[in-house]
């Protein structure tokens, strides 16, 4: 009979032992799976963030969106607000806010309400620093265990400081310093009670309580924060009421925020290609770009306003009211502006809305240039010495045969004008004449010239190349027009100027490779023709409708069925290419089904941008190189005519060019 008694106790003992062993093992397994803590919390703080600067040295963006500050540099109001909202017991507990935990458990299991607030500040810090954002019990347990160790290892001040520096405030900013700058244009130690309480609630649900999206809701939540602060004894009734009555004025420290997303994205891509993603994101680089913030603002504004105007014309509802899916179907635009004197890409807009579609249309070479490609054909023809701007070519129906195929290029307006000068042909964008030119000088010659000018995309060596049937990007087309504005000097587009490491040592210098690629006289002859396109040609709306009165030249481009609408225009100071079209390549037609042209869709954007961009610039004329003469010719015969001749056309010619005189 004794044996069973002993056995029962033994079993009990052994069971207890096994239980303890199992619990201990599980505990140890969990503990050893916890991440290691560093000696000091600051040791894990990321190094200086990579920063991108404008051409004039303004900070455009800090890539980490996080700026560490010491606790002493944070407004006491904010610290109090955070303590009142997240963990009133913070200075009393050793890791776990048990009251909060019990309250959360009670709400969860008894009142069946999902409520946060169970985790104290230390636990939240542990979660944010080490774990993913799943809501499992396993993760919560690990948070709790790590929080206990953190309290053992670090002081309360260290924990609170680290917490304030890493919480998510929405709008892609982390930490109170960035939040203060993003929402109130001030530093963390300058926040008033009302502002501090306003910000303290945002981390609870950063996307929903984003003040730029839901200001009223966030303002209501501020009152809850203030009430809790009062209840916790941080502020008096009077302070609370005063702060509630105070108006909240949102203001960004970086007013340029969000206006150069495509440019910045392109800069990041270039730097990432040179170094690595790690170096870009964590290297603390200082990247100096060519971006001109003033021009970029104007570019963004011109594209936005231009597209709003087009939306109405095309029958779209207000873009802001459209769903994300609907927005994908809206008309798009891209704009690139370059300074032809040094190759700097001053402004770049790659689409209407980076947050909806980050695809950069300014650099992607998937759009046909149409007639905007023609100047390269005329340049090749003139520079080869076979043609002058006064040369007469017959604008008539023609059929070319090649590779057993026939091609009859149509004119845009379906009309034929008979004998015309080359100047008329380019300024009126006559397809037949351009096709005849390329047929004469051969596509390979045109390709050579286009390459020299700056076109890098693949170009098909066929006759239709003359009409822009090989796709290019707005950036390269803009670059390829620079020599027209610049006496035949080509420039490589300069996006970056130089890169420094965090100690200020220059790691990489960039320069725009330049070369005199075409005789300045030949260039000037084409420039003169492109000026005529603006004065009396396909781009005359620049003068007639938009009253742009500076010396300018340029070329429109409209592809078949109006799928790509272009205008590339320039002054001596600035070359700007504008593209308009749909991402899915459908024709751009207005409400009545009428196709739009480059002049109708792209020129308004170009003009609005150029007017603003050049507002403070002196009027400059295109310099005329030595050896250029001007003659008045009969536009139907190309013969020199007396001054009294009606409808004479003035053409620029190289000195020594022999033209027949009509008198």
């Amino acid at each position: 009979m004794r044996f069973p008694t002993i056995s029962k106790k033994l079993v009990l003992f052994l069971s207890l032992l096994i239980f303890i062993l199992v619990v201990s093992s599980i505990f140890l397994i969990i503990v050893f799976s916890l991440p290691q803590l560093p000696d000091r919390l600051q040791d894990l703080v990321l190094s200086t963030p990579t920063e991108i600067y404008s051409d004039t040295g303004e900070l455009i963006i800090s890539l980490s969106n996080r700026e560490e500050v010491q606790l002493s540099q944070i407004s006491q109001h904010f610290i109090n607000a955070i303590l009142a909202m997240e963990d009133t017991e913070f200075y009393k507990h050793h890791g776990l806010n048990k009251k909060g935990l019990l309250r959360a458990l009670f709400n969860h299991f008894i009142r069946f309400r999902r409520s946060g607030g169970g985790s104290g500040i230390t636990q939240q810090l542990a979660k944010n620093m080490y774990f993913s954002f799943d809501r499992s019990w396993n993760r919560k347990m690990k948070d709790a265990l790590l929080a206990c160790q953190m309290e053992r290892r670090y002081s309360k001040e260290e924990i609170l400081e680290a917490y304030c520096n890493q919480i998510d405030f929405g709008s892609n900013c982390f930490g109170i310093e960035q939040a203060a700058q993003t929402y109130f244009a001030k530093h963390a130690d300058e926040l008033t009670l009302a502002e501090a309480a306003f910000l303290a609630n945002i981390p609870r649900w950063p996307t929903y309580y984003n003040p730029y999206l839901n200001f009223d809701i966030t303002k209501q939540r501020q009152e809850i924060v203030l009430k809790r602060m009062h209840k916790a004894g941080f502020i008096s009734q009077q302070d609370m009421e005063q702060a509630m009555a105070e108006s909240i004025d949102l203001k960004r420290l970086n007013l340029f925020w969000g206006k150069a997303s495509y440019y910045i994205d392109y800069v990041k891509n270039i730097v990432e290609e040179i170094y690595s993603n790690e170096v870009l994101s964590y290297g603390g680089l200082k990247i100096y770009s060519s971006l001109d913030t003033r021009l970029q603002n104007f570019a963004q504004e011109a594209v936005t306003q231009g597209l709003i105007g087009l939306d109405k014309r095309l029958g779209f509802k207000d873009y802001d009211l459209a769903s994300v899916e609907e927005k994908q179907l809206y008309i798009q635009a891209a704009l690139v502006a370059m300074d032809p004197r040094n190759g700097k890409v001053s402004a770049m807009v790659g689409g209407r809305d980076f947050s909806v579609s980050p695809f950069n249309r300014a650099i992607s070479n998937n759009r046909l240039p149409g007639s905007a490609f023609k100047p390269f054909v005329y340049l090749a023809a003139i520079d080869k010495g076979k043609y002058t701007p006064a040369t007469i070519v017959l604008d008539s129906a023609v059929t070319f045969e090649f590779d057993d195929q026939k091609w009859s290029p149509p004119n845009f307006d379906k009309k034929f004008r008979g004998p015309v000068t080359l100047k008329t042909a380019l300024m009126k964008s006559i397809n037949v004449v351009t096709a005849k030119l390329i047929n004469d000088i051969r596509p390979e010659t045109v390709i050579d010239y286009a390459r020299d000018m700056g076109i890098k995309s693949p170009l098909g060596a066929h006759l239709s190349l003359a009409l822009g049937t090989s796709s290019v990007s707005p950036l390269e087309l803009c670059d390829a027009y620079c020599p027209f504005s610049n006496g035949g000097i080509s420039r490589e587009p300069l996006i970056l100027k130089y890169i420094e490491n965090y100690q200020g040592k220059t790691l990489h210098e960039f320069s725009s490779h330049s070369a005199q690629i075409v005789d300045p006289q030949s260039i000037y002859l084409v420039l003169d023709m492109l000026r005529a396109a603006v004065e009396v040609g396909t781009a005359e709306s620049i003068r007639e409708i938009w009253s742009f009165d500076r010396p300018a030249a340029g070329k429109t481009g409209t592809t078949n069925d109006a799928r790509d609408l272009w205008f590339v225009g320039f002054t001596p100071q600035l070359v700007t290419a504008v593209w308009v079209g749909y991402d899915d390549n459908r024709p751009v037609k207005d409400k009545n089904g009428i196709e739009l042209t480059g002049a109708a869709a792209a020129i308004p954007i170009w003009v609005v941008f150029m007017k603003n961009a050049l507002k403070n610039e002196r009027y400059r004329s295109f310099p005329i190189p030595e050896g250029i003469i001007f003659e008045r010719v009969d536009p139907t015969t190309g013969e020199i005519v007396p001054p009294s001749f009606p409808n004479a056309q003035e053409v620029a010619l190289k000195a020594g060019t022999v033209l027949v005189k009509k008198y």
Partner: protein
Amino acid sequence: MKEKELNLEITKNQRLNEIITKLLTNRRIIITFVLIIVLTIIEFTTDFAEIMIGNAIELTNPYRPKSGTIWELHKKDRLANEQLEEITKALPDRKQEIPEINDLLQLKIKLEEQGTLQITADQFRNLYNQIPTRISGDIITPLDLLKLSHSKKWIWTKIVKSDSSLSFYFLDGDKQLLMDTYPSLSVLYTIPEAEQLHQVSLDSMMIYKGRTISAEMFFLVFDDLPNSIKLRLINNPFQLVKWDRNIQKVGISRYINDNVVTIGFQVNEGIYTEIYTFQASDFAVDYFIEKLNELFPELSLDYPEEKYSAFPDYF
């Protein structure tokens, strides 16, 4: 039925009472319960469990993995720093990049060797002043050079020579382009030959023929003239200071034109000579010649005459 149900209810209550009585009289259970209560109170007042757990976990810290979001970032951070360190180490020593170029021959040799040179704005100015003006003007016009200098942005000049072209890039402190020129490649080959090409002399000019004196003779007389006369002869004496020892000869024009007489200075500009002129008052020139003839009677230099001759007063 009701009676049966009532009995069942009584039985249930009796059993419950029995269990409660048993529990309340069972010492172990009471002790355990009290212990739990006491431990809970202690935990809520002293946090002993958290402290103990914290201490226990702390002991394991060195043996735990460096995992989790922040360690991943930390690794990337370190990786980035390592890569940056390598990039920085691989950078050339920029101080050695500025070549020692003091004359045109050095420029040509270096360009032949390296193809590309980057020199300071001052170095370029120095070289520019060594080149005969008709050649230097092809590189950059003096007016453009003045504009560059006055912009105060010009710090560097990059010169690139390829097989077929020569390019000059005028850059700012950030090595960004301010201006560029593309003179003919022949400029480079003309420069070292400039000595032969540009050896002008006062003696070869009609208006100074037989009317030149050495710099020493000029200054022997000039230095003793009253300041008022000196300034009527040379209205910008600073220029004389600049040339001083490089002046080879001085010529006095044989003609007076609107009470003005041209004085020519033949100046050694390195590998070539250049002629510079001043417009002097005829009265001062007469005074100078008088003193010159007194000091060097063998010269017996004629006074300038009013211009009646067919010779133009330029060279």
